[in-house]
């Protein structure tokens, strides 16, 4: 059972939220950002090559051209593999844990799994960034020594930065599953 809705991110670009319910206690929420546009890629490449050609015309050194090609290739690979995040997803499995995945444009996926025993709660926090107030969803981790304390805050959806309406949807879905563990008869 999957549904997709469109929202806006904090900087105004359109993002898509896809919700899938795999079972009664397992939900997947994925936020997809805009893909890499061919326009911006060609614009960046042409700018770099024009600059390199200008330098070549001034200095008559052909190494400048090969260096420019090299830099463009390496820069593109680094950007696709380490910087551009296509999709960030949250997989909540009640009684097992929460899995946070970021997929990069080159296909690389970086995953973190947090066990349910460590999760205290999932909340929406406010942050003041420059002149704006932005909202972000985060997971609060339990402190082993202090039962009421929070040992760490794990922020989610860092690169797509959805706005409050999208975050509220995600928050509601997560809380439905987290509540199930409170109503469970035995302690986990």
């Amino acid at each position: 059972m999957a549904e997709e809705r469109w929202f806006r991110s904090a900087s105004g670009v359109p993002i898509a939220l896809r919700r899938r319910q795999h079972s009664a206690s397992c939900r997947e929420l994925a936020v997809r950002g805009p893909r890499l546009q061919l326009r911006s890629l060609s614009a960046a490449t042409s700018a770099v090559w024009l600059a390199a050609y200008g330098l070549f015309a001034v200095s008559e050194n052909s190494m400048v051209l090969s260096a420019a090609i090299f830099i463009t290739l390496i820069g593109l690979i680094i950007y696709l593999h380490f910087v551009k995040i296509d999709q960030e997803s949250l997989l909540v499995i009640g009684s097992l844990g929460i899995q946070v995945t970021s997929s990069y444009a080159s296909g690389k996926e970086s995953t973190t799994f947090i066990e349910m025993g460590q999760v205290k709660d999932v909340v929406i926090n406010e942050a003041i960034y420059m002149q704006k107030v932005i909202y972000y969803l985060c997971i609060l981790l339990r402190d082993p020594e202090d039962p009421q304390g929070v040992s760490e805050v794990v922020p989610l959806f860092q690169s797509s930065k959805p706005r409050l309406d999208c975050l509220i949807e995600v928050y509601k879905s997560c809380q439905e599953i987290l509540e199930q563990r409170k109503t469970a008869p035995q302690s986990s």
Partner: protein
Amino acid sequence: MVLKVFFPSCCSSADSGILIGRWISEQNSAVILAVVHFPFIPVQVKQYLGEVQRLTEVSVSVLGSWSNSKQEKEERLSKFLEDLGTIFCHEPWIQISKEGDSKFWSCSTLQKHSENPQEEEIILVYYDQRKVMLSHLHPPLDTAGQGAEDASKLSAIFDTVARSQVLFMTDRYDEGPIKLTHWQSDGVEASIIVELLKQASVPACMLLTFLLSLLSGICRSRVLKFWPLSFLWSKLSTCEQLGHRLQHLQVISSNRKAQSQNQLMRKANIFVSLLIDVALGILLMSWLYRKNRIGHLADTLIPVADHVAEELQDLLQWLMGAPAGLKMNRALDQVLGRFFLYHIHLWISYIHLLSPFIEMILWYVGLSACLGLTVALCILSDIIALLTFHIYCFYVYGARLYCLKIYGLSSLWRLFRGKKWNVLRQRVDSCSYDLDQLFIGTLLFTILLFLLPTTALYYLVFTLLRLLVVIVQGLIHLLVDLIDSLPLYSLILRLCRSYRLAAGVKFRVLEQQDGKPLRLLMQINPLSYGGVVETYRLPTYSCYPKDSWASLCKKLFLGELIYPWKHKGDKQN
């Protein structure tokens, strides 16, 4: 409450039988380790499980039944399997059945002794048994007994599979009463090369230990402890590096088996690091000795030393004149300049005295590169230190003069203002001086003050030269440290067998079907490369800057001698 069943993916095509594994009641999860096939005698199964439990300290028991019907559903088999639940009483009794080649299995539980039988959700998690058995979780949690309730759930699962290795030793070709299916049931895996290496390593270790004990006996002998020699050994970085490598060899050649994962990785890392080091050293040596490059190097060494000395002479002539337009005190300038020029003259004479022997010395010293690239780099650093010894001497002279001057100036300045340093109270007190004391003091103060620019300039120039040499040596030592401490074996393991070093797990949701339990695939999430380097870094006698920038600047200003790199094991003075 949700029931989680961890099923090994290798048993997906096994014949019908009963499931054995471990039931973790705090987490309501069952870790299935193997499937026991028909025919079996229940008493023998219980006996076998008791034995396994004794050997592995894992509470292995019969958890449920598994039916894999390749044809239509057999009614008799399902009834028979239900009856088995009464023989091996386990609460809850898990029944998994697979029809034909379907991916979607039906899973149900039988709870006989519960008051309110509720429909609980079942999650089926597939895991790769071999990978989970061989993997090692980071950060390692201390296994403080079985009763650790806060212990991570995943580490319990990894622990269970890893400790049940003896269960995986029987394969289906064994003539025993019990027939099992697990990841090794098609035959126990082993490698001939690994076994041969293991057999050969014992005598090799003993030989190495014997040689090392001889060597360390020689090193510790009284002959080498006399003052000039011991001072020399402590100053040369080559000897330190050799001592460090000797320690490494001792670690590798020890006969005791590694107790924990960390120790095993450390031994392996040291071994691979030594191997690569020696290989690179031999490569360097073969490159150096080809086409008589050593001869060329020796031939260029003397002219380079001469060139450096000539440049220094030019520098001193410049200082003795009017450097940068500043006007120096003629007499002091001439004295200092002539003093340093004479030193350079002596130095050049010594170098020329040595010049016929340089090639031979270099040839033999170059042979020691076969001990490793790090040793070769340390020798290079030592050669640089020896060749620039005169710069070091000049720096010390200049610094001492400047230091004396600064102290004299500060004390006489206090006298000029009528104050005195109270050594007892460690503070400045006022003091009444006699007239003649004041007179002499003020005179000396003015003399020192007007001689300050000259001394300061000499000090500045030689400090800069010394800092340059120190930076070059520091860079070489940084490289040596890098080669020493990089855990190459762990990095190669992370590259080739990434499941061995696990930072955690990741779950993938497989195809679902309504009415059937949730299917997940558990995969191992490997540790990042940065994490690997951080966890398995080898400790070194690292040299790191002992002063912060502020204290360094203060020392430079006051003229105290600076030794920017501190070695571990240096006594604090």
